[in-house]
């Protein structure tokens, strides 16, 4: 029986966790990565972890990061039902790897990481977390969260919570065809939807930090 499955994607190597115990999964992963034929194949890979409905603790994520590091691989994003991500707030510190980097380095790292493209709607309770830019070809519904160290672009309605430049990059932006997030964060800045019903504006809009606050303007005006 297989506890983990691998899939190559354009964004990197996707590892999906199965239903087995964590120990069995880690030992299978260790074996798989350790096979001589796999060595060169996996080396240097960027890894996307799909947790499914599984509960994964921060210590387990750290264990996985350490194992991947032995094979010269890096974890760049975690996707799944968010309850899978046990100590949710701490994960922010876990991706990218926990060493403290200068803001410039973190921003550069976010730009270098391949964008993550999601071709579906992200629904309530689901969370996407990525070390680079996130592109959603679909909607982000209320109760869903997208957290990216780079920019976030939504080709659809953005109505959930979005955090761009989550590692501190204040130049990060959030764009959407219809930009109506419950809450919008860029770096350590935070803005929330106005309480009164907003008239839908067209064309698409983009949010960025200017003079220390988050502003929203029509796409392409600056």
């Amino acid at each position, binding site marked *: 029986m297989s506890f983990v499955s691998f899939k190559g994607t354009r964004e990197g190597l996707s590892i999906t966790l199965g239903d087995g115990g964590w120990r069995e999964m880690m030992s299978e992963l260790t074996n798989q990565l350790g096979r001589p034929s796999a060595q060169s194949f996996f080396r240097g890979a960027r890894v996307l972890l799909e947790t499914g409905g599984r*509960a994964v603790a921060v210590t387990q994520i750290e264990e996985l990061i350490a194992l991947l590091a032995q094979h010269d691989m890096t974890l760049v994003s975690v996707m799944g*039902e*968010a*309850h899978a*991500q046990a*100590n*949710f*707030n*701490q994960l922010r510190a876990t991706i990218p790897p926990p060493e403290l980097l200068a803001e410039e380095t973190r921003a550069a790292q976010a730009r270098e990481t391949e964008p993550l493209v999601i071709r579906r709607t992200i629904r*309530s*309770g689901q*969370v996407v977390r990525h070390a680079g830019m996130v592109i959603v070809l679909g909607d982000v519904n*209320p*109760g869903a*969260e997208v957290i990216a160290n780079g920019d976030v672009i939504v080709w659809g309605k953005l109505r959930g919570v979005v955090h761009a430049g989550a590692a501190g990059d204040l130049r990060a932006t959030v764009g959407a065809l219809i930009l109506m997030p*419950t*809450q919008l964060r860029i770096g350590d800045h*935070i803005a*929330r*939807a106005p*309480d009164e019903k907003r008239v839908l504006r067209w064309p698409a809009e983009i949010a960025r930090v200017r003079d220390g606050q988050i502003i929203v303007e029509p796409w392409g005006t600056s």
Partner: protein
Amino acid sequence: MPGQVLTITSGKGGVGKTTTTANLGVALARRGKRVVCLDADIGLRNLDVVMGLENRIVFDLVDVIEGHAKLRQALIKDKRLPELHLLPAAQKRDKTAVTSEQMIALCNDLKKEFDFILIDSPAGIESGFKYSIAPADRVIVVVTPEVSSVRDADRVIGLVESQEKPSPQ
């Protein structure tokens, strides 16, 4: 005088627990009582939407219980009634994130600052119901005039009584 913990529950879903909690909160706050409405429906939160405070959520119940945020940071003050507060549920987690003991400890802290703690219980009689009932001084069972609702309410009253809570009046 320390605050009272009232848990609003029903067994059956969709009978108006959340609506009752929000309205009771408003009514008590209008009388000048300090009130906190606590959404215990982790994973399917709604009380924030009903109270119109959805866009103010930064930290939630689970963040407080796990020590990621202070109680003060997670409490959201109502837009109109300064006495009314919301402690929102987490949407990204499930009912296993909280235990009865943790809810009792949390409510003991809240009792020091509030006159009333209204807990909006999830539907059902599983762990979410159990941790919602655990800290309660009194329990309000919401019923609609349907046979299934009445049956479920009767079951819930039995469960509440077995927890040695006061019987419903």
